[in-house]
């Protein structure tokens, strides 16, 4: 096991247009966002692997007064969503293109396909998601 800068590598990779996770060499589970070791089997031998960006939105809510942050206004409309990557990991993120007008339709169709997009924030890039089919 080696001591390495995983967070920095992740964000540096986004600058190069790559979304990176880490795969466990023992059980094959992928950690995204990437961390030191495997949360599925406790394995410590991990390798960097590029994510395809394909995913599905499994649940979502719309932002309200408390949860719609002004600094994210450029991304509106969006949902606060649970997303599952094609490679397996699930996490909370945002999915753009979700609004009150298409909420009922999307709720009926869950899980719906989404695709990753790298966007610029103030001083760093992050991954968000868009509906794969409008």
């Amino acid at each position, binding site marked *: 096991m080696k001591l390495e800068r995983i967070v920095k590598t992740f964000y540096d990779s986004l600058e190069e247009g790559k979304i990176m996770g880490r795969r466990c060499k023992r059980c094959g589970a992928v950690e995204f966002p990437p961390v030191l070791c495997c949360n599925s089997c406790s394995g410590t031998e991990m390798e960097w692997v590029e994510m395809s960006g394909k995913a599905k939105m499994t649940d979502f809510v719309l932002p309200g007064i408390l*949860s719609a942050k002004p600094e994210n206004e450029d991304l509106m409309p969006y949902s606060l969503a649970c997303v599952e990557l094609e490679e397996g990991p699930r*996490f909370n993120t945002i999915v753009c293109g979700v609004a009150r007008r298409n909420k009922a339709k999307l709720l009926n169709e869950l899980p719906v396909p989404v695709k990753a997009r790298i966007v610029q924030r103030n001083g760093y890039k992050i991954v968000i998601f868009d509906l794969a089919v409008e």
Partner: protein
Amino acid sequence: MVKLGSYSRSVSIIGVGCTPFMYTLDTPETDGLTEGELFGYAALDAMQDAGVEAKDIDFYFHGQASPKMGSDYLTPNMQVADWFGMRGKGSIHHSEACCTGYLALDQAVNAVASGKFDIVLSGCVEMADSLPVPGMPAHFRKKFSMEEFLATTVWIYDRAYTRPFLSGPVIVFDDAAALYAKENKLSESQIDDVLNAMSINNRRNAAKAPLALCRKEYKDLAAEAGFGDVMDYMRSPHNPKMGEYLRVSGMELKCDGAAAVIVCPTEMASRFKQKPVKVLGIGNAAFEGSQVHLETRGTQEAVRQVYELTKVRPEEIDLFYANDFIITSHLISAEIAGYLPKGEGWKYIMEGRTAYDGDKPINTNGGRTSFGHAHAASGLADLYEAVKQMRGQCGERQVKRLPRTTMLRGFGGGQNLSATILRTAD
């Protein structure tokens, strides 16, 4: 999968103490109270309840969610000892945000169960309605607005990914409500009414709880505002939506307060003043804010552990508490624990069956939306209420059937989950 081991020796609660939950700055009688006085009062209240004195206590735990911001302390256990006669005795501070008070019991029980100490006090304090004034003595404090507080809640979330990923710190307001509505096919207006009914029930309970922060019932507030039907009031701009589902009435009322508990080996417990309440077990889980449906998953795991250890069956639970700083917690955790039937709990709530005078009482003190939320202290305030209910000492809010077995579900701190089972000692 975690399998809890049995305690090396059984541990029981012999004393509980609690201050009123309050806005100390708002009344002349309480303006100027300090952390030491609040913690000390709760600790001494617990000692009087048990019939012990500070010289009898071997060790104490101190909980506070945000000691640097709220008290300008890094080692807050050191600053309270003298206030309740514990000068020179050992102590440890711990901090798990809104779950602190629930885990305060866990710490004390483990310390006694291990055999290291016989009598341990565990207390928590939070002055969440005000902030210290830099450079001034402790009785100088200034108001701490909800807006300022909300800006600090991000501190319980991971800086590497959860905060930059934009969702984890805020999805929590509505995630559990959305999931419950989806799984049980409730419409938007139905889930809205269920959340409102929980707020109404909590307030009915608090109205009978002398230590509660907010005791005016929603039906009276509705009448004052000219509404004939309380539910019309709850759906109105008097109770605005703050999230997609969460309304103001379903949010915590942050405030000031402290609470404490004293535990000892069950074999010693009958020597003291009160009927002992045994701690059968405490299950624990934790999921960071980036993890999906973390409250549901964490509660399932904590509940699984404690049921497996104690062999208690869900139908044996007589009384239930949930840290409901987001009101939905109250429903979903009671269903996960099997206290309310899965998918049917919302009907119990709508029918008022979960209020103090119902057959499935929940949060008989009013919970976080009415009793108040002095963040670290809330879990021990719930424990105070549970123990008093189990002794039959709650006066007009005493539940109909004397509870023998109680579960408390802790939640908080980006996010810890716990499930505690108490049983009246034979």
